[in-house]
């Protein structure tokens, strides 16, 4: 059981043009919605893995407790889009599990819902959701989402590179000139802070 590497490869082969820039894991119990979101993502040049439940999603991500998350680099997930109302584990519960996992918490999670309930939206954003999309999801929503995820990835990458350069070029002892004969200890690298999550204004029509 579970998505095989072969199925993931098949999904990749049907892309319209260019290499896939993001691998998206879509979670929805509705057949119809899975098919639609899959098409929206493929048109947007994303690789898609679509599963029908939160537990299948966790299984795919290697978080089901039955096997280690080692060896998933080839199928690394860059974005998770999940329906809110699902039988069994809701999208909110899935979001929480992902954010509680040290291995997975950096993956942006987007919640999709047909219901425009402010308390629900707030709760999801507070729990760390990247965005909240109203169904039916449009192509414009997917494009906007993809751009913002790629931009954040790009910023994180640049930030890591610039920190590395700083460490290499600017090796300056942290403490001011202390002419004692005790050797100054190696300055520790600056603590790596994850980029702060921006609460996005919701796209209200």
């Amino acid at each position, binding site marked *: 059981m579970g998505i095989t590497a072969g199925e993931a490869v098949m999904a990749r082969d*049907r892309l*319209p043009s260019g290499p896939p820039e993001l691998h998206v894991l879509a979670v929805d119990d*509705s*057949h*119809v*919605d899975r*098919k*639609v979101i899959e*098409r*929206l993502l493929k*048109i947007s040049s994303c690789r898609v893995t679509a599963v029908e439940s939160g537990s299948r999603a966790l299984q795919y991500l290697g978080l089901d407790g039955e096997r280690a998350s080692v060896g998933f680099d080839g199928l690394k997930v860059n974005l998770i889009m999940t329906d809110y*109302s699902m*039988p069994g584990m809701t999208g909110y519960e899935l979001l929480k599990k992902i954010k509680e996992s040290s291995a997975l918490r950096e993956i942006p999670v987007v919640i999709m819902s*047909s219901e425009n309930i402010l308390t629900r939206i707030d709760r999801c954003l507070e729990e760390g959701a990247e965005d909240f999309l109203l*169904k*039916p999801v*449009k*192509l414009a929503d997917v494009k906007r989402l993809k751009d913002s995820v790629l931009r954040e990835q790009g910023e994180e990458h640049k930030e890591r590179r610039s920190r590395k350069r700083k460490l290499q070029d600017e090796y300056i002892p942290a403490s001011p000139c202390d002419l004692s004969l005790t050797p100054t200890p190696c300055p520790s690298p600056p603590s790596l802070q994850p980029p702060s999550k921006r609460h996005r204004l919701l796209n209200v029509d």
Partner: protein
Amino acid sequence: MDSAVLQLQRQLSDYKTSLYNEGFLDDQFTQLQQLQDESNPDFVVEVVSLFFEDSERLLTELTKTLDQHSIDFRKVDAHVHQLKGSSSSIGAQRVQKVCIYFRNYCDEQNVEGCLKCLQQVKNEYTLVKNKLETLFKFEQQLLAAGGSIPMQ
């Protein structure tokens, strides 16, 4: 251009327009058509087929659930919610609208209201199913005659 093709194109276009005017379909159906292309020429038919399958299953479940002595309204609501979702996803506007009323009756635990809505949603589903099948038939005829389906 072939006059038969022109005629078929006109027939298709008029029929489609009527479906929108009568509220059977809304903009979401147009969105789906825009996702179809040469690499995925059957996308709309495939999605709509899934909708038919899902709806028939849900309507059967709803009939069973509402036929019980002691009705589980949470179950009824869950099914109607699913039906509302999938009809919204393909743009089946009239089905979606009945589902909204249906859910209100569920909240009130109003058996009579629910039964009325069940009948109504079955009617609306049958109507939109027939309409969509006719639409697809017109498209097939046009393609068979050598025409192409105009982008709405």
